[in-house]
C-alpha cells in the first residue's frame, strides 16, 4: 500500500526531488541579494546638498535615499506574483482544454503563491509609500492596479468557496483566472495612460539601473522565483497527498 501510494504521488511529481534544493538555493540567492542591496548597490541620489563630501572614496553631493533599498525586494516580489498569476491562467487554459482535475489544483496553488507575493509586495510598497509620499494611501496608478489585482485574487478564492460541485468550480475558477490575467495589464495601461487632472503626479520613476543595482535586484528576483517554486511544490505535494487520503477514506468507508 505504502509503495503504491509513493508511486501515485510520484506521477508527474519528478520535480519534487529538486524542490527542497531549489528552495534552499532561492533562500541563499535572495539573502545574497538582500546583503548586496545594502553593500554593493550605490544609494540612489536625492536632492542635492550644499556641498561635496568624500564618502568611501566617492564624491557625494546629493542626499542618499535609503528608502529606495525597499525596492530590491519589492519589485522581485511583484514580478513573482505576476509570474504566478500567469501560471494560474496557463493552468486554467490547460484545464479547460483537458478537463483534468490536476490542472485545477495547480491553478489554485499557483494563485495561493501569487497571493503570498502580492501581500509581500503590498506590505513593502506600503512602507515605501508612507515614507516617501507621507500618506498611507493614494489612488496612484501603480498602487491602484496592484490593489485591484489583490481584490481579484481574493475574488478568485471567494468564487472557489461558493461553488460546491468540483468540476463546475474548476471551470469557473479557470475562466476567472484567465480573465484576471488579461484584466490586470489593461488596468495598468488605463490608469497610467489617462492623465488625471485631479491628482498631482506623485510617482517618481526609477531611473535606469546601474549594474551594481541590477546585480542584487536580479539575484533577489531569481531567488524569489526559486522560493515560489519550492513553496508551490510543497503545497502541491501536500494537496495531492490530501486527495489521496480522501480517496483511501472513501475506499475504507465503502
Amino acid at each position: 500500500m505504502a509503495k503504491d501510494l509513493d508511486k501515485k504521488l510520484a506521477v508527474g511529481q519528478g520535480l519534487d526531488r529538486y524542490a527542497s534544493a531549489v528552495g534552499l538555493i532561492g533562500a541563499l540567492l535572495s539573502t545574497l541579494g538582500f546583503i548586496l542591496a545594502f553593500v554593493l548597490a550605490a544609494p540612489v541620489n536625492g536632492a542635492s546638498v550644499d556641498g561635496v563630501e568624500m564618502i568611501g572614496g566617492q564624491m557625494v553631493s546629493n542626499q542618499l535615499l535609503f528608502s529606495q533599498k525597499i525596492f530590491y525586494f519589492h519589485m522581485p516580489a511583484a514580478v513573482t506574483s505576476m509570474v504566478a498569476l500567469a501560471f494560474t491562467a496557463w493552468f486554467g487554459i490547460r484545464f479547460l482544454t483537458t478537463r483534468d482535475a490536476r490542472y485545477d489544483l495547480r491553478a489554485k496553488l499557483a494563485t495561493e503563491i501569487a497571493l503570498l507575493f502580492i501581500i509581500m509586495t503590498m506590505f513593502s510598497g506600503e512602507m515605501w509609500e508612507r515614507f516617501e509620499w507621507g500618506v498611507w494611501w493614494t489612488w496612484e496608478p501603480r498602487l491602484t492596479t496592484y490593489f485591484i489585482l489583490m481584490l481579484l485574487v481574493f475574488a478568485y478564492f471567494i468564487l472557489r468557496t461558493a461553488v460546491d460541485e468540483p468540476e463546475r468550480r474548476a471551470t469557473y475558477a479557470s475562466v476567472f483566472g484567465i480573465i484576471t490575467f488579461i484584466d490586470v495589464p489593461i488596468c495598468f495601461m488605463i490608469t497610467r495612460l489617462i492623465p488625471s487632472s485631479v491628482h498631482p503626479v506623485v510617482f517618481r520613476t526609477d531611473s535606469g539601473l546601474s549594474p551594481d543595482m541590477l546585480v542584487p535586484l536580479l539575484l533577489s528576483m531569481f531567488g524569489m522565483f526559486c522560493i515560489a517554486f519550492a513553496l508551490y511544490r510543497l503545497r502541491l505535494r501536500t494537496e495531492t497527498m490530501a486527495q489521496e487520503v480522501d480517496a483511501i477514506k472513501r475506499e475504507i468507508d465503502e
Partner: protein
Amino acid sequence: MNKPSTFQQYVTLLRKDLQREFRTKDMLSSMGIYALLVLVVYGAALSQTARQFDVLQMSGGLLWALIVFTSLLGLNRSFSHEKENGCLEGIMLVPLDRSVVFLAKATSNLLFLLVVEVVVLPLFYFFFLTTTQPASTWPMLLLPLLVGTIGIAGIGTLLSTITVNTRGKDVLLAVLFIPLVYPLLYACVSATTVVVAGGDIEGVYLNALLLAAGYDVIMVLLSWVLYDFVVSA
C-alpha cells in the same frame, strides 16, 4: 426540419427576453427604483457640502457609481429566471452555438441598461446639476456612456452566468464584477468628467474613450470565447 440560421436563433432568444420583460417589467422597474434611491442617497451624502461646492467635478464619478450599482442589480436578475425552471438547460438541449446565448443575453442586458440610463440621466441632471452650468460639450458624454455600458453588459453577462450557480450569488457578482470593470470605470469616469466639467477634451476624452473601447473589445471577445465553458459547466 431546416436548421435556422445563427442570426435567427439570436433574434429568437433576444425576443424571448424582451417578451418576458414586457410582461413582468421586473428588471426595468427594480433597476429604475434602485437608481432613484441611489440618487436620494447622494442627496443625503452631499447635503452638508459647501454652497460653492463644485458638483461638476464629481458628477462623472457619481453618475458612474450609480450606473455600476444599478447594473449590478439588473445583472443579478438577468439569469435568475433562466435558472428558475431549468430553462437554460432547455436552451442547451437545442442544437445552437453557445455563443449565441451569450450574445442574446448581453444584448438584452445592454438594452435594459440603456433604457434605465435614459431615464436616470435627466433625473441626475434635475437633482444635482440645475444649480450649475455644465460645459457646452456635455452631449459628448453619451459616447462614453454607450461604450461603458457595452463593456458592463458583456463582462457582466459572463459573470452573472457564473454567479447564478453559486451560493451567495448577489454578493459574489459584486465581488467579481467591480474589480474587473475597474479599468473601464476609470476610463469612462475621466471621459465623462472632462466633457461635463470642461477641460482638455482632445487629450483626455479621446484617449479615455479609445482605451475604454479597447477594454470592450478585449473583454467582450474573451467572454464570448469563454462562455461556452461557463454555460456548459
